[in-house]
C-alpha cells in the first residue's frame, strides 16, 4: 500500500482537520483558564495586585506580541478547520428524516448542535472585548487611568474594569458571551479528548464530568467580576 501524498495531506483530511480544531481548542482553553485566574486578582484586598500583574504581562513587548500572534493563529486555525468541517457536514446530510427520532436516544444536546452559533457570538465578543479593554477605543478615558504601584506609574486596570463593567449593556454582553462559552466548552472540552484519542470506557465519565466542571468554573470565574461591579462591590 502506497499513500497518495497529495490527497492524504494532513490538513485536507477529515481527521487531520479535527486534530487542528482540538489542538487549537486546547491552547485556547489553556489561555482562558490562565486569563480567568489572572482576572480573579480583582478580588484581592488592594487594587495593586491586578495592576502589578497587568504591568508584568506587558513587561516584554516581543514576548507579548509573540503570544498574541500565537493566540491569533490558534483562533484562525480553530475557525477555519471547524467551519470547513461543518460545511462538509451539512453537505453530507442533504435530507433529514421526516420524523426526528428521540433526542435522548440520538444524544442531541443543545450544546452540541449550537457550536457554530456559540462560537460566532464568542468571536464577536472577543473582538469587542479587545476593542474595549486592550485597544481601549470604546472609552478613550481608560488610557488616562494611571496609578502608582511599587513606586512606578502603571495603568490602572482595576479602575478601568470597574468603570467598564458599570455599564449594564457591556456587562450584559459579557455575561451572555460567558454563558455561550459555557455551552461551547461543555461540548468542546469533552470532544477534544475524543479527537486527541484520549477516551475509553474507563475515562468517558471522568472526561464528561471534567468538561462540565471546567465549563462551570470558567463561567463562574469570569462572570463574578461584572456581577461584582454591578452589585457595587467596588466604588468607582
Amino acid at each position, binding site marked *: *500500500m*502506497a*499513500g*497518495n501524498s497529495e*490527497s*492524504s495531506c*494532513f490538513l*485536507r*483530511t*477529515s*481527521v*487531520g*482537520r*479535527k*486534530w487542528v480544531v482540538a489542538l487549537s481548542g486546547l491552547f485556547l482553553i489553556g489561555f482562558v483558564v490562565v486569563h480567568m485566574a489572572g482576572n480573579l486578582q480583582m478580588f484581592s484586598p488592594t487594587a495593586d495586585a491586578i495592576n502589578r500583574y497587568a504591568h508584568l504581562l506587558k513587561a516584554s513587548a516581543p514576548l507579548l506580541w509573540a503570544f498574541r500572534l500565537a493566540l491569533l493563529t490558534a483562533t484562525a486555525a480553530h475557525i477555519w478547520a471547524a467551519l470547513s*468541517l461543518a460545511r*462538509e*457536514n451539512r*453537505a*453530507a*446530510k*442533504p*435530507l*433529514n*428524516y*421526516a*420524523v*426526528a*427520532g*428521540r433526542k435522548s*436516544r*440520538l*444524544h*442531541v*444536546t443543545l450544546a*452540541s*448542535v449550537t*457550536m457554530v452559533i456559540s462560537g460566532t457570538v464568542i468571536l464577536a465578543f472577543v473582538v469587542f472585548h479587545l476593542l474595549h479593554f486592550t485597544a481601549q477605543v470604546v472609552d478613550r478615558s481608560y488610557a488616562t487611568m494611571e496609578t502608582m504601584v511599587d513606586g512606578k506609574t502603571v495603568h490602572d486596570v482595576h479602575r478601568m474594569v470597574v468603570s467598564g463593567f458599570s455599564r449594564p449593556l457591556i456587562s450584559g454582553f459579557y455575561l451572555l458571551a460567558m454563558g455561550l462559552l459555557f455551552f461551547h466548552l461543555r*461540548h468542546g472540552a*469533552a*470532544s477534544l*479528548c*475524543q*479527537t*486527541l*484519542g*484520549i*477516551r*475509553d*470506557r474507563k475515562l*468517558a465519565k471522568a472526561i464528561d464530568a471534567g468538561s462540565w466542571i471546567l465549563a462551570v468554573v470558567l463561567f463562574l470565574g469570569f462572570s463574578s467580576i461584572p456581577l461584582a461591579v454591578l452589585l457595587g462591590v467596588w466604588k468607582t
Partner: protein
Amino acid sequence: MKLHLKIWRQPGRDHPGHFVTYELDGLNPDMSFLEMLDVLNDRLTREGKEPVAFEHDCREGICGSCAMAINGEPHGPNEGATSCQVYLRSFRDGETLTIEPWRARAFPVLKDLVTDRSAFDRIMQAGGFITVNTGQAPDANAIPIGKEVAEQAFDAAHCIGCGACVAACRNGSAMLFVAAKVSHLGLLPQGQPERKERVLRMVEAMDAAGFGNCSNQYACEAVCPKEISADWIARMNRDYAGAVVKKL
C-alpha cells in the same frame, strides 16, 4: 393489531420520492417488522401495485442488509437490534410508523428503502484487509494473541457494515464504521505491517466518498445494532495522528 405505515416511495435514483401511507389490520404482535413488510408487499402485488423495495438477507440480525429508519431511528426503537429483529409488539396498536431509507449523501437511494452502500466497500478496498500469501490455511494458534486483545479486536469486528452509524449521524459521518474496521485489524498482530498505511488509506477513502465528519455526539453508538463503542473513534484518531507523524 392495526398499524398505519408512512413509507418513502422512490422509483429510482434520480427520481423524486414521496411518502405513501398504507394501513394494515389483523397483524400479529409477534410478527417481525420485515414480516409485516412482506404482508404489505403480498397485498400490493395482488393489487397489481409495485411492492416496496427493501433489502433483507439473513433476517437474524447478523448480515446488516435490512437498512431502514423507523420513526427517524435507524433500525427502529430497540437497543442493539437490526430492523429484522424488531417485533410489532414494540409498537402501540393503531400507531403510525414512518419508514425511510438511510439519509446520507454517500448512500444515495436506489429505490424506495434501498440505498447504495458501496461507499463502504470502497473504504474496505482501500485498507480493510491484510496482505498474506494464499495457500493452505495457517495453523491454528500459530500466532499467539492475548485474550484481552483478542476480545477487543472481536468487539470491533462485530461491525456488520449496515451503515446505521452514518444514517443516525447528523453529519452523515462514517467514522464509527471506519474506526471499527481500522481497530479490528490494527489490534491484531496480523494487521501490524500495514497498520499505518491502513488508517491513512481508509480515512482518505472515507473522505472521498462524501461522508461528513464526527462532531462527537455518538448517535452512531446509540443506534449501532452491534453496540460498537464510539471509543474506537478515539483510537482511530490516535492511530491516524501516529501514522502521520511517522510519515514525516
